[in-house]
């Protein structure tokens, strides 16, 4: 499907009230980036479409790409490989919402736990080994836990590398906060 035909594509049969509630928007600096990003994502069979932005975030004659929001992390990784990262990612239903930026930090004996949104990462401060990953509801959470637990913080794969979803993204924030705490 060409860039312009995406406007003509029909939505899937939907139930009342389901439209767009699990979709997100990629916002780019300029239209040429939108075109390049669309080509990258289409080539990987993502269910996306190019559209005009909602009024809250409109800045001119710009375009945005609508994506399955949950899979944001995986989509961003695909775009990063092609050097075409968006300026911002927002939910379709509430484009002014921002990702969570509050962390809960807790020390339990020799362990440090950091929670970002619904994700928690815990390390042993004496050995730097990741001892637990908890919280979350997307299917990459058990996978991330499997790959990260038991490894040293700086040797484990980061959620940004192997995660796919918003839960993986939240875990990345917790991971970065743990690193920052350990470096203080």
């Amino acid at each position, binding site marked *: 499907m060409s860039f312009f035909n995406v406007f003509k594509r029909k939505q899937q049969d939907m139930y009342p*009230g389901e439209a767009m509630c699990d979709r997100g928007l990629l916002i780019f600096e300029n239209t040429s980036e939108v075109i390049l990003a669309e080509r990258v994502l289409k080539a990987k069979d993502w269910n996306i479409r190019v559209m005009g932005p909602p009024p809250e975030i409109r800045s001119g004659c710009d375009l945005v790409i609508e994506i399955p929001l949950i899979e944001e992390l995986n989509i961003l990784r695909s775009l990063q490989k092609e050097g075409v990262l968006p300026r911002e990612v927002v939910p379709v239903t509430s484009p002014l919402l921002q990702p*969570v*930026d509050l962390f809960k930090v807790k020390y339990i004996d020799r362990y440090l736990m950091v929670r970002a949104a619904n994700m928690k990462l815990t390390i042993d401060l004496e050995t730097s080994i990741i001892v637990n990953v*908890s919280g979350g*509801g997307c299917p*990459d959470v058990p996978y991330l836990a499997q790959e990260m637990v038991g490894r040293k913080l700086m040797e484990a794969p980061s959620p940004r590398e192997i995660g796919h979803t918003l839960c993986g993204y*939240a875990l990345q924030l917790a991971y970065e906060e743990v690193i920052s705490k350990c470096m203080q």
Partner: protein
Amino acid sequence: MHAIVGTVPVEDFPLVAGEASLAGNEFLIQDYKALVNRGTPALIAAAIKAGEVVGLPAPYCYLVGDIGRGDGSRRLYEFLTTHIGEFDFETITFHYLQPDVHWHNRVLEILNNRMPRPRLIADAGFMYAAKMSGRSLEYDLFTPDVGELAFLADEEAPHPFYTRGFILHEESKVPELIQRAYDHGNAARHLLVKGERDYISSREGIREIIDHPSEEAMEVIGGTGDTVTGIVAALISTGMEIVDAARIAAKTNRLAGYYARPTAATQVMEILPHIPRALEEVLHEKQRLDAEGESPSMESSSISPGMTVLDVIKRYRHTESVFKKYDEKAGECICCNALFEPLENMAAHYDLNLDELLAELEESILIDA
């Protein structure tokens, strides 16, 4: 018959449907197996262990491998739309699936047309999809943790990652968040909120609060939320009332954690073997209360061996006289020397009869009441 729907964090795990069983630290389904250390496999293991205690057959599971790409989940959603109606399940528990509102709605529509309609429990990704779809009230039970409760309470957020900062997910705000979730129609008919204190609620308000035994490390151990959902699913499948099942499951999970002597590095596989003993004890306590015509109050009045002396005195001030009475047998002041010890350890240390002590403590509570 009860069903569990979820994913296995193994990329090439095929789509399978059938009864699951346990073999050590792995669950088996058809010719496939996976570790029960987290996610849906941990939930299945807890449901099997709880089911063994209450005489429930093994759950029928619909599973597929998915490491977060969503491809496995979408195949499973599609499979469910054509196959989930083949059996008359009393209860179905949905777990780690890629949240997808369209597919969620298709599956829910099929289940809503079943007569009788199964009781529906949702946790993790499927609960996210249920909330996003605006159809939370069609579910019988959600089992969020506090962070996920904040997401349910935020009518704008499409995922916990976007929960707004002013809706802080703090333990002290749980009652407020529960109310907000119900006000916006984003909670199931019942909630079991897992946290430092476990809250059981319905639209009418908070029904139970369970807060002991309390092990700080349980908060960080991946899979402990999955196990409590597995236990409550098994109990509801026996026909138990949801509030009763949630209370017993929350207590059982806490007690199993206590028996595992957890640290922040403990893995859920180390807690799973303690579930049968914990559940037996909690059910025994329920039977005793039922026989005595007692109904558990909102702040559960029972005393368990895992509570510390301080826990007991803090909650029931007048029980101090019972401990004083035992000072002579102990040979020293219990409150001075063992305040932070669980009753079980304290009784063993001083060679006291734990059952007698528990009975006397309970009696003093009843007299005071």
